[in-house]
């Protein structure tokens, strides 16, 4: 899903100064004002689209081109809504930094274009690799998720070289993951647990077993619709009745647990919410 690789050669980091007001750093997916007082991180696909637009200033680029550059080139398929959401977020970030602007213009039914009246200056900074220099190095980003790993990987080799830690950390990780999965899987009432709320009260003359909710009280005999002598089982083997002493509403479920728990039901009394 995520792949990170260190650059072995010194890299050129290109920062774009847009209209003398905003710095755009495509490596760390950030937009910042020139004084570096405010920095906004944008999604990697939005970065790729913006970079492509900047590189083709004045040229109208279609949604299709931009979706290819932003997502499809990296094996992702997204809807036009996702594309427009990313462009919208990009515009919002630019507005937050420099207020109302028309840097990215929409040309109806054609696509997007970077306003040709704005200035775009490219500045280059050299970044050295970790092998040559202990200073921060460039981590090539393949997906947006890899960014979160960067600070940890940069911090160096203390833990990595301690081979004794490896099995321990792996074991603890596995235990935590298993506990989390177990907890998630058992957080819901299952059908069997729910069925345990019913007790067997009678066998209908028609052949099915009748169950009623354990806290129902003695309501079975009072209800002619669920009288064991007259109840029509309709070919089902189990009938579950739910009724409460003080409610007019009740339901009767006719089920065949042996056939994939197929059930039909009768629901009596309606409350309008």
């Amino acid at each position: 899903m995520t792949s990170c690789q260190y650059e072995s050669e010194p890299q050129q980091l290109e920062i774009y100064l847009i209209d003398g007001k905003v710095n755009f750093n495509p490596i760390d997916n950030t937009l910042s004002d020139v004084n570096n007082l405010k920095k906004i991180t944008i999604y990697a696909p939005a970065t790729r689209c913006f970079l492509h637009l900047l590189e083709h200033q004045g040229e109208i680029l279609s949604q299709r081109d931009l979706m290819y550059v932003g997502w499809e080139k990296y094996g992702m398929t997204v809807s036009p809504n996702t594309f427009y959401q990313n462009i919208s977020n990009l515009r919002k970030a630019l507005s937050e930094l420099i207020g109302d602007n028309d840097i990215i213009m929409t040309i109806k039914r054609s696509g997007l274009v970077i306003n040709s009246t704005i200035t775009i200056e490219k500045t280059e900074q050299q970044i050295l690799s970790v092998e040559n220099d202990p200073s921060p190095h460039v981590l090539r980003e393949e997906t947006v998720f890899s960014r979160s790993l960067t600070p940890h990987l940069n911090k160096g080799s203390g833990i990595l070289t301690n081979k004794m830690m490896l099995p321990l950390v792996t074991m603890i990780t596995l235990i935590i993951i298993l506990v989390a999965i177990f907890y998630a899987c058992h957080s819901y009432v299952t059908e069997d647990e729910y069925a345990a709320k019913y007790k067997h009260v009678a066998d209908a003359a028609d052949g099915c077993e009748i169950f009623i909710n354990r806290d129902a009280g003695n309501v079975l005999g009072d209800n002619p619709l669920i009288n064991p002598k007259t109840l029509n089982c309709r070919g089902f083997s189990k009938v579950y009745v739910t009724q409460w002493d003080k409610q007019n509403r009740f339901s009767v479920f006719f089920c065949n647990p042996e056939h994939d728990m197929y059930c039909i039901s009768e629901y009596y009394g309606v409350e309008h919410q």
Partner: protein
Amino acid sequence: MAACAVISCIAAIYISFSYQEKSVLERAYYSCNTEFTIHNAGLSIPMVVTFQFDKHTGVLFYDNPLYKGKERLGMVNNKIEFLIQPNKDFVRLLSVNVTKMAKDSAPVDEVNRILPDFFFKKGAAIDFEVINSKVGLLFIHDSVPMFFCQRH
């Protein structure tokens, strides 16, 4: 390695909690059919309903006759688009769009007397506790099971 382990643990715990918080209906696309008959005030309507749940939204269709005793009053034929709003112990379905389909012919007053508002009015909600099983979902309304929706 340690960083990855920490991240994996946090991710597992987060996924566990988010999975737990999400209702069964919210986790993925889910489609099911149900048959249940509603009875009220001498009226009855045998409902055959198709539900489609897709994370936070859903749609249901039905095309069923409405009876008063043994007399058939007409058909109730609607498509309801709804939102799925999870709460701690129940899931609220809120109708956001109701489309009366071609066959709909039952008198509105009688429909109003028998069907919960959610099934024919826009902006109406109904709360369900939902029990998941391998083959479907049991919908319980106000402590009384209403229908079992069998997965396609």
